């Protein structure tokens, strides 16, 4: 007797991986179009990212003589695979495929691997521009990871106090009990503050202005990416797009877990739910990444670090305190 469930899971996983890749690149195209319009430009065609990827795949893959070759070639694969595996853990309007095998903490790690892989690959390239970029990438990673951990743990703690759920780190937990409905008015403000701080992390996670300091075209000539070309660069290009969409998807799963069937009269658990989820992720990306990137200048690395560690971290901490206060007042 063949175990059909494994085959079913693998098939589903493949579908989700390719769909996520496609949607990420499509969103990248939409982003370029929207930003272009904000800057009074016409912008590239919507499918430009796909054209770019196709071109990069055809190009020669140059590995510098000074590079540590296996590390240099391995890191783009590590970055893309870890970025894309994330989607197997995120509930897309329906329970995630690998739901019972992973939780929020794993997702946090998966989100941190691409920047680490980028930094390692950059160090392995032996270029001084890439080395500066890698240092910046790591500083940035350390600064925003603080904020994310506060957000994740406030959620877990809130769920553990208010619900009987034992697996509070599960990504399906917020979907079952939307956090906004568990708290009173003070806690509501607290969650809003957590949302703001998470949105502020978005440019850092996605490598967008004002936090694109690891690439910083005019300063260090694309920094971490400077020595990559051809196939490797295509993988990293996709990684950047997938990271942006992945983080937006995580924000949606945590903060906006409601399904479309709550608002409009449609049958439950159809294909409309993932589409609604993608729309929500698109809105999150628009406000946290696209809009901001057209409206501000790039930070310097110390300014970005200070921004995340002091300002955003304080906002997140204040959010946590407000939730704490709310629950204490309501007698939990």
């Amino acid at each position, binding site marked *: 007797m063949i175990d059909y469930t494994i085959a079913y899971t693998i098939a589903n996983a493949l579908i989700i991986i390719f769909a996520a890749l496609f949607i990420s690149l499509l969103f990248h195209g939409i982003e370029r179009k929207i930003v272009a319009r904000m*800057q009074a430009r016409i912008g590239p065609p919507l499918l430009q990212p796909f054209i770019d990827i196709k071109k990069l795949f055809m190009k020669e893959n140059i590995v510098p003589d000074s590079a540590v070759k296996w590390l240099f070639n391995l890191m783009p694969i590590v970055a893309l695979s870890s970025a894309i595996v994330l989607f197997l853990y995120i509930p897309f309007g329906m329970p995630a495929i690998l739901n019972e095998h992973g939780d929020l903490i794993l997702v946090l790690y998966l989100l941190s691997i691409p920047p680490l892989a980028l930094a390692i690959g950059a160090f392995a390239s032996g270029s001084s521009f890439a080395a500066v970029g890698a240092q910046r990438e790591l500083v940035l990673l350390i600064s925003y990871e603080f904020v994310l951990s506060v957000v994740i743990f406030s959620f877990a703690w809130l769920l553990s106090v208010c619900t009987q759920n034992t697996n509070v780190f599960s990504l399906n937990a917020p979907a079952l009990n939307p956090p906004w409905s568990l708290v009173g008015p003070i806690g509501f403000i607290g969650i809003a503050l957590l949302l703001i701080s998470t949105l502020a992390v978005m440019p850092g996670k996605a490598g967008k202005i004002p936090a694109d300091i690891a690439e910083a075209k005019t300063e260090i000539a*694309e920094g971490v990416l400077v020595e990559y070309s051809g196939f490797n660069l295509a993988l990293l290009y996709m990684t950047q797009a997938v990271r942006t969409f992945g983080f937006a998807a995580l924000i949606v799963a945590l903060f906006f877990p409601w399904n479309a069937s709550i608002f409009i009269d449609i049958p439950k658990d159809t294909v409309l739910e993932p589409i609604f989820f993608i729309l929500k992720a698109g809105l999150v990306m628009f406000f946290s990444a696209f809009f901001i990137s*057209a409206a501000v200048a790039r930070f310097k690395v110390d300014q970005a670090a200070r921004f995340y560690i002091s300002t955003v971290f304080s906002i997140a901490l204040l959010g946590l305190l407000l939730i704490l206060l709310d629950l204490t007042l309501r007698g939990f």
Partner: protein
Amino acid sequence: MANEKSKEKVCIPIGPVHPALKEPIQIEVEIQGERVVGTNITLGHVHRGIEWIGTRRNPIQTIYIAERICGICNICHPLAFCQAIENAANIRVPERAEYLRTIYAELERIHSHLLFLGVAAHEIGFDSILHYTWLAREKVLDVIEMLTGNRITKGILMIGGVRRDISKEQASKIREMLSYYEKVYKKLSKIFLDDITIKMRTRDIGVVSKKDALRLCLVGPTARASGIKKDTRQDFPYAAYGDLNVRALTPLDIVGEIRGDSYDRTIMRLIEIKQSMELIERCLKEMPEGPILYEQSLQRLLLNLKSVSGEGVALVEAPRGELIHYIRMEKNDFPSAWKVRAPTYANLHAVGVILNNCELADVPIAVASIDPCISCTNRAVIASEKIVLSQEKLHELCVEKTRAMKGDSL
């Protein structure tokens, strides 16, 4: 920090080809962590021997060579050249031509400064402003095209005057442009005076004190941003500037303090756009009627110039600062000497001071803030040994190289 000393120094070459640079120049910065501890500048990548070419052509032909010294400063170079010839030959330019020259020079200043504001914004990653300023710059380029027939190399100046007059309809088009730029100026000054991120990236970055600016003989907006009231249009008026009473502006006029940093240098360009707009408006109003050329016949002009013996020096306030042309004529078809000193040549000395103690992230904006124009500056190359290749030798080398490449591919 205590362990700062022990950190390894890394040499980062910025240029000759680098996304932050619009023209080739090599700036080697030595960094410890992210802090710049040493700077070395190498020039000469776009040396074309223009002055040498100019001494092998007659002065009228050389006007067009002078125009091609730089793609942006292509009024001020031929203007300085023409003035130098006029000084040497004692030619008096008709008054209307002087006003027309002033209008062209100020239009060029507007376009150059808008270009700079865009570049400065791009260096700090603020691409929306880059696109906005360059879109606004199209308007002045359109007007220049309408007036002269060309957007960039205008070919409008002539020894002893200008080649085309500005008609009434054209004047009204210019006024229309000025009212458009009133709006642009309002918006840009709102952005540059209020935006926090621009200030974060440029305030107190690359400070040049007034003392340093005097010591290094800086010119133009770079010097004025450090509080030196120095402007060729004010100190040694040429064209119609004597009638217009131009006053050297400093950041004091708009932000109320002088720090001599990248922000001040950026703001200087912004207020000079406003100043140029006012000057053009006054020129249009006060321009007298009359001829626009000292000598209509080019043949006769050349004949006159052939009998000239003497030297001429001209100072022009280019968008980047004081530009000097020197000409020597010795009763010959061609000038026997021509020397150009571009403003960037004086201002590049400030780069060492500017970059001292900057962070690596500040290098592009700090260097860009003096608005360097590299092709203006490249007037000489230093070669370690003298090699002269004849045409035959060059051809031989070409054939050899082609054979080698063919051999590779086969």
